[in-house]
């Protein structure tokens, strides 16, 4: 449904800032009717990709087709297929819920009875049905998000793009919103692409794409991604990571990964994990702040995937590291 090929985006340099490449030759395919989560650390290029996908920016190079339409040659045709939920709400807070819906519908050429029917359909799943006359700025964050999503559903989009839609929601609202989103995606056979950096959100997705430094590091189902890490992970938080790292590498014949102040030993068979923990504790009791055995979850996948690249780039020299710092600070709110 969404086919991204060799997408490259460069932000022009100015006198004080040199040009920076936010997307490097990115290729990604999202099949029809699938739910894809796009994740990556701040500055990974997610928001740049998002801006390009919703047609607010044109890239330096590469192509994007949505539902068979070239995004850059026929932007209007793609806009018809798409619903977009932005990180900063694209509703008018001074208007009521129903006024917002009506305005959005009119921008898509829906009026009168057709609007009424679509509005009922788009609101069916929400908790805002009896507050339609209320101004949006009087709603809680969770309900305001529902308005945003309902608004997009009015036009029966085939593709739904969401940029960190759960930012600022409490855990209950977050779960409720995602639950509704997954249900709607199945019922309406939509293709959903959602950016997120909360990995627990990705467990139910059909696929997870992980980006870093403008490159796609992995794109697979959550299960397949977790399988990369093998069976269990031993996570150690030592007092002085550098000392401990050396000691672990010397005493055990296993690859040790550094992530922040944590040391990780991946792909440990279940039978050996407990033994390994015991050995580490026996030798370095005073050095260890905490130690744990984990079933890999997507957070671990993220550490694994992004951490590995970090190590690789250090091995090849410091140059790639500087480009990473030059990248745009991503999670400042995106503006149209």
């Amino acid at each position: 449904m969404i086919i991204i090929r060799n997408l490259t985006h460069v932000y022009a340099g100015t006198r004080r800032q040199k040009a920076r490449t936010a997307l490097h030759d990115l290729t990604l395919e999202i099949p029809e009717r699938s739910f894809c989560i796009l994740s990556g650390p701040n500055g990974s290029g997610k928001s740049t990709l998002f801006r390009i996908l919703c047609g607010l920016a044109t890239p330096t190079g590469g192509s994007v087709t949505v539902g068979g339409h070239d995004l850059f040659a026929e932007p209007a045709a793609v806009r018809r297929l798409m619903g977009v939920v932005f990180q900063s709400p694209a509703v008018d807070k001074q208007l009521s819920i129903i006024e917002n819906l009506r305005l959005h519908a009119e921008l898509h050429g829906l009026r009168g009875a057709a609007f009424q029917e679509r509005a009922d359909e788009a609101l069916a799943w929400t908790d805002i049905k009896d507050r339609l006359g209320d101004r949006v700025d009087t709603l809680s964050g969770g309900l305001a998000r529902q308005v945003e999503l309902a608004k997009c559903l009015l036009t029966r989009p085939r593709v739904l793009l969401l940029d960190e839609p759960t930012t600022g929601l409490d855990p209950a609202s977050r779960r409720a919103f995602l639950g509704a989103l997954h249900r709607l995606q199945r019922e309406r056979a939509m293709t959903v692409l959602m950016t997120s950096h909360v990995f627990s959100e990705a467990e139910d997705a059909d696929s997870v794409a992980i980006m870093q430094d403008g490159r796609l590091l992995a794109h697979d189902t959550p299960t397949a991604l977790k399988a990369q890490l093998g069976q269990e992970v031993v996570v150690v938080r030592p007092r002085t990571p550098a000392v401990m790292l050396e000691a672990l590498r010397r005493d055990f014949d296993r690859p040790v990964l550094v992530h922040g102040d944590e040391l990780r030993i991946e792909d440990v068979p279940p039978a050996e994990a407990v033994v390994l923990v015991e050995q580490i504790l026996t030798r370095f009791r005073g050095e260890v702040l905490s130690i744990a055995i984990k079933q890999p979850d997507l957070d671990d996948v993220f550490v694994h995937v992004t951490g590995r690249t970090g190590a690789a780039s250090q091995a090849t020299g410091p140059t790639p590291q500087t480009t990473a710092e030059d990248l745009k600070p991503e999670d400042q709110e995106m503006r149209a």
Partner: protein
Amino acid sequence: MSGQTTTALAPAVWALARREFVRFIRQPQRVIGSLGQPLLFWVFLGAGFTPSFNPPGMEGMTYLEYFYPGVLMMMILFASIFSTITVIEDRDQGFLQGVLVAPVPRMAIVLGKVFGGASIALFQAFILLIAAPFLDTPLPLASLPLLVAAMVLTAVGYTALGFSIAWSMRSTAGFHAIMMVFLMPLWLLSGALFPVAGAPMWLQVVMAINPVAHAMTLLRGPFYATPAELLATPAYLTGLAVVVVWVALGLWVSAVRVGAREKGAAAA
């Protein structure tokens, strides 16, 4: 859904313009502020300058009377320009990105804001127009449509100008600065405050190329002459042509700016 890819222009413009007006009416401070300021200007300056106002060829005219069309102009200027500040707010609050990704003609985004802003300006200017019969001007009834037309054209011209400036601005503070050094002088040198005739030569040149001065001609004329007389006056016709070009240019530049998407730079 029908085969066409973009929504028709008129319904989209109407929807966006209506939103502008509804938002305006829901902020009483805005209504009071933009109505009160020109009114106070008119009363205070008019009363203060009348004793010393005695330009050649305008004997017997009070400053209160001379300044009245100028205040109308000022009110339209302020209301139109202030309403385009909402372009920056819309962008800031996220509303604009939702409109940009909708399949509407880019011109609809411009016209929605421009007509919405112009209608707000006209709403206020029409309220001030209630004072017109109490002035000593002849104001032939037949000229009223020309006066209204001048007001509409001016309001659309200002909002289009404001839109094209506000589009790329990221802060309302910056917009205020531009307004003080660029838009205010357009009004000051339009003949709204003082007649062109007595001004120094260099000022007369500036005023001749100022589109707002030509709009001022359109606005002042109907108070003193019949449509037949006006349409036979070269200055009036020149003014009309200049203002029409101004409006068209403003709308065109705005639409081009809205249509331009941020482009990736050439590969490094």
